């Protein structure tokens, strides 16, 4: 498999791939912690997942190893399941409380 990798992928240093996806991950991370709307927080989490996906695909291409890309398929399937469940939970909560503001949910504490 090593040979089938296009030149261009291995021409870029691995560090760049890692830095790019880490940057994307950090953007998601900051969003998760600062945004107040649950839907947006959720989107930021998806962004973090995608940052990981980006790292997987790019390094997979870099090494010419297909494992990372297979993993991405799994991740996307899992993310889809998570979205389905997550949105259902958010809808359930919205029905009861009529809000999706994150600070409402601090009744359980101490």
């Amino acid at each position, binding site marked *: 498999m090593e040979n089938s990798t296009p030149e261009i992928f291995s021409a870029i240093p691995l560090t760049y791939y890692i830095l790019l996806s880490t940057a994307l991950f950090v953007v998601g991370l900051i969003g998760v*912690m600062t945004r107040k709307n649950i839907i947006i927080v959720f989107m930021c989490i998806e962004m973090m997942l995608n940052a990981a996906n980006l790292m997987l695909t790019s390094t997979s291409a870099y090494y010419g190893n297909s494992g990372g890309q297979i993993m991405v398929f799994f991740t996307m399937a899992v993310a889809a399941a998570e979205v389905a469940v997550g949105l259902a939970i958010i809808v359930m909560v919205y029905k009861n409380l009529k809000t999706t503001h994150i600070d409402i*949910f601090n009744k359980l*504490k*101490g």
Partner: protein
Amino acid sequence: MNFEGYIHLILWPTLIGFLINGIFGSKLSRKMSGVIACIGPLTGLLATSMIYLTQPLLEAKTVIIYNWFTIGLGNPVNFSVYFDHLTVLMLFIITGVGSLIHIYSIGYMKDDPGFSRFFAYLNLFLFSMILLVTGSNLVLLFAGWEGVGLCSFLLIGFWFKNTEYNKAARKAFVMNRIGDLGFILGVFLLALKFNSIEIVKIQESFGEIAKNDPTIVLITLLLFLGVCGKSAQIPLFTWLPDAMAGPTPVSALIHAATMVTAGIYLVARMSILFNLAPFTLNIIMWTGVITAIVSASIALKQNDIKKVLAYSTVSQLGYMASALGVAAYTTAIFHVMTHAFFKALLFLAAGSVIHGLQGEQDIKNMGGLKSKMKVSQIVFLIGTLAIVGCPPFAGFFSKDEILASVYSWSFWGFVVLAFSSVFTAWYMFRLYFSTFHGNYRGTQHTWEHAHESPWIILFPLLVLAFLSIIGGFAGMPEILSHHHLVKEYLKFSMVDHTHTVSHLFEYSLWGITVVALLIIGILSYRKYSTIKKEDFEKEEDIISKILANKYYLDEIYSIIFSRPLKSLGSWFKNVFERNGIDIYVKAPGALLNKASLELKPLQSGNISWYMISILLGFLAFAILFIFKF
């Protein structure tokens, strides 16, 4: 039947009794519950006597019941029991006094709704106590140690529905936990140091250790902290008087005769270890001496019959500890034995009085009961004479031995102990006279209903009274007899230091004891057999009153005894116990509770904050990682 058979007969019947009463208790009749509960200690007593009679036990025997688990690098730990003379003697005390108190409880608790529950706890207690004294390794010892603590905790709270009980039980719990912490850490370090948890093996490896080795001192100090908790020594003693909230048989069995002496037993069992740490021994002696005097002086001020006895127990435990501190281990165990007799007797007699007066415990409302409760009065008198050390009752010999041993080690310790003997005599005579002599001070109604207890209650009292009279002859001093039975019996188990005092000292000690007791007896008879209820209430005014009466003796009393003693008592009670010790003992607990409340806002319920803290935690670890601390 062989040795192993007896061991099974000692160990298991109490556990079986606990299971039957605990699980099927509500379905059994009261009679059945009581009988089942009594079988345990009685078979134990029988089996112990058989061992005593048929087994010489010149060497300690370890009997493996089964392989329990394996620890460390392939060290098997067995569920095994360890028998030597000390074990047998302790078993006699536990099963003997235990049997009597079980019988007594059938009568005492007969109208209680929690009858079978009570007996279940009591049996579980005995099982744990037996485990404690027979366990051959520190893990079993610890199991027993915790078991008796749990039962004591459950039994203190047996009756109360309100917060008062919660306070008492919690206090007992917290103080015992502080002690247990010392105990656990001590045991852990011991196991670490000797790479074994079998008591025999640890004892064998003592040979090569120098005196006052720092580790040994630390271990012994930690173990002694455990002893302080369990045997109510300063500073962990205030739980014991509060523990009197439980039913009286419990106070007699657990908080006087057996459980509180577990600490004394522990030190005696580890005597070789403690002999290696003279520094710790000194601390033990002074702790014991101070405990003896402080609690004896507090007892002077108490008006609750059980509280007086409770403080007196603490004070007697102080005597035992001071005997341990001068490495007179057999003497301490001897006092454990006689104390078990007379203190159980006093508690049970007090219980009989309380029972006859429908739960009245305040001596302000008693008096003149000798006409109503002849038997209780006589046995209480015997108990009183035994505890104050009047020859030839049981307490005389053991206390005398302790005083002599301490004298040969430290003069000032002896002086303080002698003073607390005076206090002991004073509060005990006060208790006795104000309860049984003079006129009745309670309501007419209770007086009419006051009655002597039934025979099932009186029988154990008579047996204990008999033992309190003759128990001391097992350990007569050298000048009377060359056979100190207890010492001879225990010489294979413990290594005492020799304590020699001159015969002259011995005789003069006796003479002084008799004279002092006579004087105190007469004084307190004059004062308390005619005391009025108001006199209790205005204790402070009493001095002026006595002066007005112009009794020359009373005048002396007020100057020499009353004023200093009273003020000392109240000073100890208020300054020392309330403000001094309790604050320090409670401080760690209060600190933790405060920390708990302070930390709660961290758990704010806010999702964003949770995510931030996860990130912060991760970053902290990452930074630690990068800088490779």
